[in-house]
């Protein structure tokens, strides 16, 4: 040990590592969680939220205890995110504040619920962070390492839709784009609509790359809602049947 000169390093009885109070992040990966985690991903306007709501209805009708967890919804981090969205976030702090939010939800709700045997439904998951952060210039590997603590989903549905279709749906549904949603922090274009198009294009390219990387289950989001939902339920069903101890709705 390099102690410098004339410095007394105290008694060494303290150099024993303490007993681990919790499993490391990696160990958890191998834990067999009794619950099921279904997540939906896709760009804005892909229709993923609609599909998840319909899946929830179906799960309830089948008697499963299903719980929603929304992206960016931790009460602990809420005020900080709100503060940051007053345009004081850089790509790095944008990434970290969302990771903090996700960590809080993982520790307080997603993981305990899965341990308890619930079906957990997430509208957006770590892949949203990977796509958005990389589109903002964050290192691809760094952000993947950052989310190493996340539970791997049972099924990650990716609602694939061409950019023009998604934009068409959004323009019909609302007026104007939010600052960060349109990637206006990146200075791609002064025109919000054009910036949105460029930014979502980058995100789309990242999703495409992640399909093989993470084995995302692709659903063609240009198909009728009912057809997509039938596919989603079919896939979910196979994973529910194999589950041993899922909770039923009280």
């Amino acid at each position, binding site marked *: *040990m390099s102690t410098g000169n004339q*410095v*007394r390093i105290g008694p060494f009885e303290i150099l024993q590592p303490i007993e681990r*109070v919790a499993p490391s992040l990696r160990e958890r990966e191998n834990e067999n969680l009794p619950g099921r985690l279904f997540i939906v991903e896709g760009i804005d306007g892909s229709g993923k939220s609609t599909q998840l709501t319909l899946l929830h209805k179906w799960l309830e009708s089948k008697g499963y205890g299903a719980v929603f967890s929304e992206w960016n919804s931790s009460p602990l981090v809420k*005020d*900080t995110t709100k*503060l940051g969205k007053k345009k004081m976030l850089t790509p790095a702090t944008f990434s970290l504040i969302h990771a903090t939010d996700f960590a809080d939800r993982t520790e307080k709700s997603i993981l305990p619920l899965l341990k308890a045997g619930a079906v957990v439904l997430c509208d957006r998951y770590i892949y949203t962070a990977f796509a958005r952060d990389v589109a903002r210039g964050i290192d691809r590997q760094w952000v993947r390492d950052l989310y190493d603590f996340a539970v791997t989903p049972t099924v990650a549905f990716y609602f694939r839709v061409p950019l023009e279709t998604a934009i068409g749906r959004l323009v019909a549904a609302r007026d104007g784009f939010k600052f960060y949603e349109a990637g206006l922090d990146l200075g791609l274009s002064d025109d919000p609509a054009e910036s949105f198009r460029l930014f979502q294009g980058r995100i789309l390219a990242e999703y495409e790359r992640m399909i093989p990387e993470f084995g995302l289950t692709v659903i063609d989001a240009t198909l009728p809602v009912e057809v997509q939902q039938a596919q989603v339920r079919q896939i979910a069903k196979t994973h529910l049947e194999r589950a041993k101890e899922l909770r039923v709705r009280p």
Partner: protein
Amino acid sequence: MRKTYGKTLPGMKLTDLAGKLIVVEGTDGAGRTTQINRLKPWLEELGHAVLDTGMTRSPLAGEGIRRAKEGNNLGRVTQSLFYATDFVDRLENEIVPALRAGFVVLTDRYIYSMMARAIVRGMDAEWIRKLFSLALVPDAVFYLRIGIDELIPRVIFSRGFDYWESGMDVFPGKDMYESFRSYQSALLAEFDRLSVEFNFETVDASADADIVFAQLKAKVQRILEADSRKDFITTLRAPTAAPAAHRVEERAVFIPRAGTATETEAVFHPVAAHVTAPMGWDPNRQK
């Protein structure tokens, strides 16, 4: 050019960060804040512009972390990431701009405290290192080290035991004294390990505050002087390809010999290290 621990944040240029990044690390109660509060006016008196910063002081996340801690409601992963958010906000918006403007940045704790806290809580050591690979490598890390038995009276007779400083989230069920002892000992052990990995300069913080201050001043001075000396030397057209055996001549001063008119007839006078070198000057630092 400055270095990071592996990753560079988007938009961050590592050139022209001429200031000095000086880290004061150590466990709770080691006297970091006291020392920084003395170092800052001292440096300013010497004419240096100083930025002092520290954990949870970011405008973005500082308040959020404080509120979350009040609720004793912060999981270990969330904790690490919340602190990382606070750190990166200060790194991008305070530390880097200050270094670019030539400030001496004194930081009360850096990534090492966050690493130690996470590792003690059972987090993956590699994960936390990757997370903070975006941090700048500082010019020096002064580790104020104090043993657990000297630390306890300091805490008891000043602010008393605190939930987080006692690591009550790590050792639920223990009383505050027992928990404090176990937690701070574990932190200390982790700091000792990190001190080797990250080349901390250890200062015995159980000594009188004046003595610690004197030691820190000498160390800071050495960093600042090593730097100005380097600039001085490069302006002096010293021979660049001198063999290692003649290293003393690399620091020679160019003096035209009396009566010579041209540069070619001049000689290099070796300058004895003890005459011109500032205290603590180490010629090997220039390599």
